[in-house]
């Protein structure tokens, strides 16, 4: 187990070259973003498209390199050089990513048990029987059972697939689970199940969440603190309940006003 699975992001900056073939222009996707996530804490980043929330998630898990700033995981700076296989494996023990689309994030040819077992084989030295037991334990943790271990992803529903994706991410026993719009593609009735699962998981195991979402109402249920991002900049940050109940920044207010509801005063969004 990782002793101190905290995450510290300091002055993070990411610039993409744009402007067609000549790359003569640049877009600042993330600009001077700083935050920390303590052990077992859940932080949400909320924003619309182009806010930089997904870029931040990708940098945290190491799929993208920052243009500036530091990412400190468990007290160690994230290296910017090419990683050895050993370094990549230990990084995988620190952060794991759950993607939005459970239809594309699982290997369609691998049975659920193999998918999860593969991660276990990579990180732990388990005997075959121990590994099987651990796979069943993980499936149980996400509300599935051992019968699902022999199934292929195509025979599972969207909600079940997302459960498998979460089980697979948890197999490496990461300190931080990064969830990038992990419930956005699901039907409402299934989305509620997965949200409940995420709420319950934090009570069962020691794991922190970095929860990326465009949906303020969803964030309310799964995060302790929230960062509201707009065009790469954190415009508001604070305890989730407080930010949603009494937002300070006009952008947070506009986001809240734009959430549909029956007595929606049409005209509020552009006012």
């Amino acid at each position: 187990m990782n002793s101190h699975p905290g995450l510290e992001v300091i002055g993070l900056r990411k610039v993409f070259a744009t402007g067609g073939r000549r790359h003569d222009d640049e877009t600042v996707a993330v600009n001077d973003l700083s935050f920390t996530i303590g052990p077992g804490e859940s932080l949400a980043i909320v924003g619309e498209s182009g806010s930089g929330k997904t870029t931040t998630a990708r940098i945290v898990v190491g799929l993208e390199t920052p243009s500036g700033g530091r990412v400190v995981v468990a007290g160690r700076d994230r290296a910017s050089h090419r990683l050895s296989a050993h370094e990549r494996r230990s990084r995988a023990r620190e952060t794991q990513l759950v993607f939005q689309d459970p239809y594309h994030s699982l290997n369609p040819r691998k049975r659920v048990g193999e998918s999860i077992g593969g991660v276990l084989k990579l990180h732990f030295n388990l005997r075959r029987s121990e590994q099987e037991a651990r796979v069943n334990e993980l499936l149980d943790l996400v509300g599935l059972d051992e019968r699902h271990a022999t199934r292929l992803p195509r025979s599972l529903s969207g909600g079940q697939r997302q459960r498998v994706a979460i089980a697979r991410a948890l197999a490496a026993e990461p300190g931080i689970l990064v969830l990038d719009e992990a419930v956005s593609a699901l039907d409402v009735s299934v989305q509620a199940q997965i949200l409940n699962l995420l709420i319950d998981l934090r009570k069962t195991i020691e794991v922190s969440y970095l929860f990326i979402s465009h949906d303020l109402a969803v964030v309310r249920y799964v995060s302790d603190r929230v960062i509201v991002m707009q065009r790469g900049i954190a415009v508001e940050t604070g305890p989730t309940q407080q930010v949603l109940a009494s937002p300070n920044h006009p952008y947070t207010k506009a986001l809240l006003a734009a959430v549909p509801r029956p007595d929606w005063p049409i005209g509020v969004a552009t006012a």
Partner: protein
Amino acid sequence: MNAAKTDESPLLDVRDLKLWLPGPTNLVPILTAVTFAVAHAEAVGLVGESGSGKSMTARTVARLLPSGAKVDGDVLFRGRSVRQFSKRELREWRQSTVQVIFQDSRAHINPVRKVGDFLREASCVNQKIKQEKADANSVRLLERVRVSNARARLDQYPHELSGGLLQRVMIAAALAPSPQLLIADEPTTALDVTTQADVIEILDELRREQRLSLLFITHDLELAAAFCDRTLVMYAGMIVEDQSSRRLHDHPLQPYTRGLLASRPRLDGDLTRLEAIPGRPVAAAEALTGCPFASRCVDYRPRCSSERPVLRPFGGGRVACVRAEEIHGVPAAAP
């Protein structure tokens, strides 16, 4: 609801619509019982989860079905059967009377033609406007959906426009021929919330201005409640509830509607676990005898597995639930 053929008859009258689509081996049932009407200048929301048949209902109404589809029942537009339209009638009907906008506007516009070309075509073909006047007309259309720098936009390509802007261009084109019915299939689902609010506001304003009837398809009950006069809820290829949006939101009749409302995360109120509906949405083809929602229903009784519910008048709306009286008591007279 019983449409007598008077002037009061609804604009769109869908009667016991059934649909099968060709599957790998045989025909697969998609819609099993769809009956509803849309009155003049009424906005009706059609809400359901994936596989419920809401989009296929819209496609069946507009006769935009793939080949090999088998349809039963009828779609009446101003009392005339759309299913009996000749090719020419159908073309004219789609050009001017009924318009459809889709979720993914980028997939429904030619990416190598300019916005101006697209709108000119909409004006010239559908509205029989002379080419010279078309551009002035296009600018007027764009301004009506609050697109800034309208004239400059005509020379832009679709990829230069944001999703919200492009959807407004699609709305402008759809409303150009002054249709009587607009079918909007998840028109704002791919958009950011603030952009969605803008687009919905424009749609709402234009439909009131033009006294347009609207069939608004969405997965979002709250959005339907915010924007539509009446909401229909679909499950497994059938309509399970039909009420005014306000009443549906405050007093849902079908246990499924109640479950949907409870499972949606809220911005206010108690912060406990969500009341998730167990299981997953089923498609019409997977539904067994009896109520298709039976296996997930909190109000389940054995009779739900044997008796097939039909959509029937209840408490001012319509509901498909054999236990409606037991759950809600005998309803008060319809308002």
